[in-house]
């Protein structure tokens, strides 16, 4: 039922796209057929793989750095509520800094290579995970923690057994938002200065007034995000199998 509905909606979107293409002309909106053709070309030439790999590796590295820090820091701060409270305005301020405005600075510091994008992605992703996981770690049930301590658990076990499992749904909420952001941050970073990557491809298409290239680049990024999200959903379903499922009841 869900799958059929999805397919129908997808077909509808394609139809609207195609209709727009016919109504406004190829200079404004490239048609799906042109894009499929372009995709075949750049797949054959190896361009697609090269740019996709570049963007993916920047996003993945930045994600590991920023996401990893954002995920671990709340656990490190778990036993220090006063330190956490003291640091709070600084984290908020750091989150408030518009990262895009920092991009030129990052290029100055880290060059136009991979490193500047990695740092950019890390800076964007960190906060999504940090604040979500912090909320998760704070929602520990003190009665559960007391119970496992009585059973002989050490602090390490409390962290792993209680804090981690309590925070896990929050981790996934953070990942759900952060993973697409990691990809788009890498792409945006490549707009600004790069010699490869999907952002570079899109930007080059813009500079050369090549709408088909632009649409193709955006399509590839979208598909990439969808694929990553589908993978995440699967991991989440397996990791949170213990929870009473929403499929049983709508609350």
């Amino acid at each position: 039922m869900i799958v059929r509905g999805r397919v129908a909606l997808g077909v509808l979107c394609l139809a609207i796209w195609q209709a727009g293409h016919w109504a406004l002309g190829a200079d404004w909106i490239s048609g799906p057929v042109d894009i499929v053709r372009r995709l075949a070309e750049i797949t054959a030439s190896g361009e697609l793989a090269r740019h996709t790999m570049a963007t993916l590796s920047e996003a993945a590295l930045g994600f590991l750095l920023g996401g990893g820090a954002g995920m671990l820091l709340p656990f490190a701060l778990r036993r220090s509520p006063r330190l956490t409270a003291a640091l709070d305005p600084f984290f908020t301020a750091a989150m408030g800094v518009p990262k895009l405005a920092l991009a030129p600075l990052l290029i100055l510091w880290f060059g136009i290579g991979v490193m500047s994008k990695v740092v950019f992605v890390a800076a964007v992703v960190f906060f999504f995970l940090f604040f979500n996981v912090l909320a998760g770690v704070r929602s520990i049930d003190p009665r559960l923690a007391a119970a496992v301590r009585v059973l002989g658990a050490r602090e390490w076990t409390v962290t792993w057994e209680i804090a981690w499992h309590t925070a896990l749904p929050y981790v996934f909420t953070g990942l759900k938002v952060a993973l697409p952001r990691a990809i788009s941050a890498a792409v945006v970073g490549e707009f600004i200065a790069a010699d490869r990557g999907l952002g570079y491809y899109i930007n080059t298409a813009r500079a050369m007034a090549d709408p088909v290239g632009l649409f193709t680049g955006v399509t590839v990024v979208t598909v990439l995000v969808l694929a990553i999200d589908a993978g995440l959903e699967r991991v989440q379903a397996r990791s949170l199998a213990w929870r009473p499922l929403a499929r049983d009841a709508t609350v």
Partner: protein
Amino acid sequence: MSEGAVLLEVRGLGRRFEPRADRGEAVFAIRDLSFDVREQEFLTIVGPSGSGKSTLLNLIAQIDAPTEGEIRFRGRPIAAATAGALRPGWDRQFGYVTQDDTLLPWRTLIENVLFPLRVQGRLSAQTRDRASELMSTVGLEGFERYYPHELSGGMRKRAALIRTLVYDPPVILMDEPFGALDAQTRTQLQADLLRLWNLGRKTIVFVTHDIAEAIALGDRTLVFTRAPARVQSEHRIPIARPRDVRTIYGVDGFAETYERIRKELQ
């Protein structure tokens, strides 16, 4: 009715709770509370709700520290107003079955039951066998792979009880463990508890607000006053073991004891 050595001494115990900012005064949940628990004794405690019974068990279990007085275990002070860091469970000497469900929701029943053995590094073929033996004693076999939320309240309570029995702490604290269950499940669980207790006599401190339960299970019953809690009276339960909780109401001595305690509580 055991007459073992004194195992646990509670002396002049007090616990004061500070009020939240500008909301009333500090209150003592318990104050000036003293009593003994003997080795292998089944001690039950009844009192009006809010009389600090759970606070007392938290202090014995060392998940909370007293404001006054001290607790001695085998003659050694284990909790005092002046003591340093808490040591929950005092190195696995105290098991604690609480009122709320504290099974880990993300672990299956068998993982929950084996959890204390795992964190204590005592998981072996032998201890596993003992765990499954205990599980089948209370009718939990076949449910090992279920998550807690998939089971009834009575089954979760049984699992919580087994999780404590499995690592064999010499003292078990129980805080109205059967409070939230229906009458039938409750009687069944009381019977299970008595049977398990008869298998390997432990020292049990069992808190309840149900007079009948206190009499049916205990060797001795303490009646607590309203907060700040103190021991109002002490009652030996004149009923021989083994007991059958289903027919306990008709046994000689039950009615008189019940009446006596009921009057005290009024």
